[in-house]
């Protein structure tokens, strides 16, 4: 680093100034060329640009003050030019930064796993429910919900279950205690399907209706690999003028393609439900083998997935008690329902239904 003191300037003509500033520039360049470490760069900065002892500060205080007024402008211009050069040298020196050896000493093992903040998983049932609901939302269906504890009226009677129907027996349905003394239709039970929401919705709202009903339901079933007394359903209801069986077919065919892929085919079988007529079971072509036949579809090429049908006029008759517009001669509609567990088990390859309700971190973590 230059140790030579700043000389006293004797003359202020251009030539003298040029010479004096050139000498300083040369010193600065020589100093900058020798910089090797960040410490040295800092020393250079202090030596030349330091606010108190810096050489440029000294030039300013000694030369500028001593200059006669007519020379101040010329001196100032040269001073600023020199300052820019020194700052440039400093920038260049700082930019060089540490040497490769310094950097090598800072090496880390990038193959160690990253630190993870674990995020929680959506339950596969919730995930599947939401997927189904959004497929129907895109077709204009709003979400409807209702209570899990229902009356016999909403769960059975208005859904056209005859009085002696086996489903109304405690063998099949979980019931609230002490109902025996009440009228049959007022008896409280755990809803066995989400269908009661169909009636609750129609009672509240004249046609047209398009609702999709996700929810938890219960049956007095023995637990096995694929059955649970607690499970989830999504049902749908569409009522308007001129709703036809072919509309039901088209809607479900579209929905199954949206859920399982556009190559999926559907086929409809006659079935029987008290609340629809005609009623159908729907199969989709096996999503595992594409319909060729495999273990998952029991070599049939088809998987049974949902039940549906045209809303029975007797159901509309119940709705008419509160909303006269549900005249089965003027309007028509369809309803459908599917088990969410079954779909989730199929989509995610789950073999035991009770895993859904066990809260095992290892099981749930797979869905994060």
């Amino acid at each position, binding site marked *: 680093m230059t140790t030579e003191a700043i000389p006293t300037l004797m003359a202020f003509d251009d030539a003298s100034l040029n010479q004096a500033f050139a000498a300083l520039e040369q010193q600065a360049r020589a100093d900058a060329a020798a910089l090797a470490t960040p410490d040295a760069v800092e020393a250079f900065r202090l030596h030349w640009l330091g606010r108190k002892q810096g050489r440029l500060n000294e030039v300013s205080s000694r030369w500028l003050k001593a200059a006669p007024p007519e020379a101040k402008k010329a001196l100032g211009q040269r001073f600023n030019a020199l300052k820019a050069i020194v700052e440039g040298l400093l920038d260049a020196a700082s930019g060089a930064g540490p040497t490769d050896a310094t950097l090598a000493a800072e090496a880390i093992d990038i193959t*160690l796993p990253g*630190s*993870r*903040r*674990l*995020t*929680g998983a*959506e339950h596969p*049932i*919730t995930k599947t429910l939401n997927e189904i609901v959004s497929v129907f939302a895109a077709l*204009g269906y709003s*979400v409807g919900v209702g*209570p*899990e*504890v229902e009356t016999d009226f909403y769960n059975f009677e208005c859904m056209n279950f005859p009085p*002696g129907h086996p489903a109304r027996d*405690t063998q099949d349905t*979980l*019931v*609230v*205690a*002490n*109902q025996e003394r009440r009228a049959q239709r007022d008896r409280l039970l*755990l809803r066995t399907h989400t269908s009661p929401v169909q009636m609750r919705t129609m009672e509240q709202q004249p046609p*047209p209706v398009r609702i999709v009903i996700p929810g*938890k339901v*219960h049956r*007095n079933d023995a637990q096995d690999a694929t059955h649970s*007394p607690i499970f989830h359903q999504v049902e749908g209801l*569409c009522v*308007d003028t*001129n*709703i*036809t*069986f*072919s*509309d039901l*077919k*088209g809607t479900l065919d*579209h929905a199954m393609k949206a859920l399982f892929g556009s190559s999926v085919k559907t*086929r*409809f*079988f*006659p*079935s*029987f439900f008290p609340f629809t*007529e*005609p*009623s*159908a079971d729907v199969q989709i072509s096996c999503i595992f083998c594409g319909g060729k036949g495999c273990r998952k579809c029991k070599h049939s090429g088809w998987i049974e997935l949902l039940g549906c049908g045209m809303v*029975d006029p007797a159901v509309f008759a119940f709705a008419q008690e509160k909303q006269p517009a549900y005249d089965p001669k003027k309007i*028509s509609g369809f309803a459908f329902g599917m088990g969410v567990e079954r779909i989730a088990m199929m989509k995610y390859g789950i073999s035991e239904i009770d895993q*859904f*309700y*066990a*809260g*095992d*971190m*290892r099981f*749930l973590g797979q869905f994060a």
Partner: protein
Amino acid sequence: MKILTKWLRAYLPELPVDDAQLAEDLTLRGIAVEGIFDLGPGNGSLYEMDITTNRVDAMNHYGIAREAAAIYGVPLLPLDLTLPAPQPAAAVFPVRIEAEDACGRFTARVLRSITVTDSRDWFAQAEVDTYFRLLEQKKISSAVDATNFVWLAMGQPTHAFDLDKIEGGIIVRRARKGEKLKTLDGIERTLDPEDLVVADHAKPLALAGVMGGWDSMITPATKNVLVEAAWFEPMAVRRTARRHGLHTDASHRFERGADFDAAPAASALVSRILLAAGGSIEGDLVDVRVPALEARTAARKPIALALSEVQRILGKTVDAEGITAATVEGVLAALGCTLAPAATDAWSVTLPSWRLDVEREIDLIEEVARVYGYNRFANTLPAFGGGVTALPWVQAEAAVRDTLRAAGFHEAIASTFCSAADAALTAPQPGLVVPLGNPLSEEAGVLRPSLVPGMLAMVAGNLHRDVSDVRLFEVGTVFSGTTDKVDERPALAFVAAGQLPEQSPLHPARLIDFHDVKGAVEQILARFQTRTVYFDRFPPEAGLTPAWLHPYRSARVVAEGTTVGWFGQLHPHEAAARKLKDAVLLGELYLDRLYKLPLRKPAARELSRFQPVRRDFSLVLDQSIAWEEIDAALAALNVPEIVDWRVREVFRDAKLGARDYSLLLGVTFQAADRTLRDEELQSYQAQVIAAVNKAGARLRS
């Protein structure tokens, strides 16, 4: 149910398809063939069938043959019911229906001098022997085999009595109190006055429509037979069968509605078989009917059907022609309906006696669709002009779920039920727990009043399986009220044990604690727009803290003056009772209350361009002084330039007094419109010190 295609084809000489195609076509029309088994050359196939209970008419060979005839439009041969001419009878055999509400028709035919054998060769024509062999139907005796054959052929239960055991004649009546009957299964039964019986003039002979009696059964010694073919009312048979714990072929059919007009045909078929080995008929068939029940079955009024209604409900077909009048007429006629034209493309339809499930116009429309073939209808989408409305709490629920998932909690779904003991422990409103009438088990005896029992079961399940890091939450319904009225509300519960939801090979792991869980609760509340949120706890003697929580390591959450939940460490008593060694943190929030708050809508504020100044204050406090008090004192200063203050560290220091603790307070000063001057900073710092002093803290020297 097992069906032979060989037998079906005997009724359908023009059937145009092979067994596999027939099976598929039947299945697609709701007559489900579940399995096909080849029985070898000339024997056709065996179908394993699953017929839905509404189609009880198709649970036999002739019924399925009728379906096939309708599908392919081929003729169905009538049953051969020819009988030898009867011998004249001295008097008509006496039959009386006393229970006219429960028995609609009773036919009786007297056969004399028959021979009961165990041979089936007598009826070669109908290949009884072949059919029975292929069906692996056990050989019993000609009388039993005859009724079984008729059952398999046409689904009509019949019964043969030993005529010589009958005193007087037949009366169909209700049983008398205390009457006894030994049924064919050898059990001596005491009859209920509601039981429907076939009796003679002295005693009950059989449980009507359910099972015959022991004393009047056919034996090798039987010479004279009374053949019964009847129609019993479904409910009467169902009740009788249930009372006696019986379920027979006969009760199965009668309970679901038999064919009112099948009795004479069934009687003729049984008689033909019994007479094949000799004997004769005495007198005409005795046929007693109850007009009221006949009007509900065989003689129902015709129903109106219009093609326009068929098309309105069914819509478009793949074939551009759609459903035509010819299709409707062809299908319904093949199924046994009689169609009389009522107007253009409209009919008055007389219903077949065997299809009690068909009674309305819509039922006929369904039959048309079914036989035409569901998959021949087009896929159309209905027009839609409305909008989609969302449930009011959808966004709030999503916010709660998202927040917990982001905090590392997995979503779980637990049982809707819990034990009465768990309910008593966790119910927010003690006593308002709703029991079930027929619980799945004692552990599931009541509707859950809280989500906490589910969380406890799940955390225990994980810890007992050596899964030590647990973080679960559930959003679900909780129940309160009485067995008269049940109230349902949405709730949220969460549970945590083990280490923080972080995984790093470089940083040390740490056990999750109260304040981690409190952070999650705070984050949930931060999603809502609130003016005041605070956490407090009560002295144990107040009895306000839920019993499942550690009395000194739990907190109540209050938002806008309403209790929205509780959380903290599981009470050590409960932990010990559930064999949980690790500290378990859990809580429950009442979502119905939270959902009343609006969701917070983010709004940007102007950010200061001026330098913030951070200063730390090392405080010493008595352990009785909670952070809340320091916090409140600083808030009370209400100095806009004190923009943030927080606890940087809390620790015990041996150099301090035994009741003291150290708290490092970090304060940030910043002005919106200027750089703070030194004098200003000095003044604010002095105010901070004065405020914390007033709250009981002193500055550590």
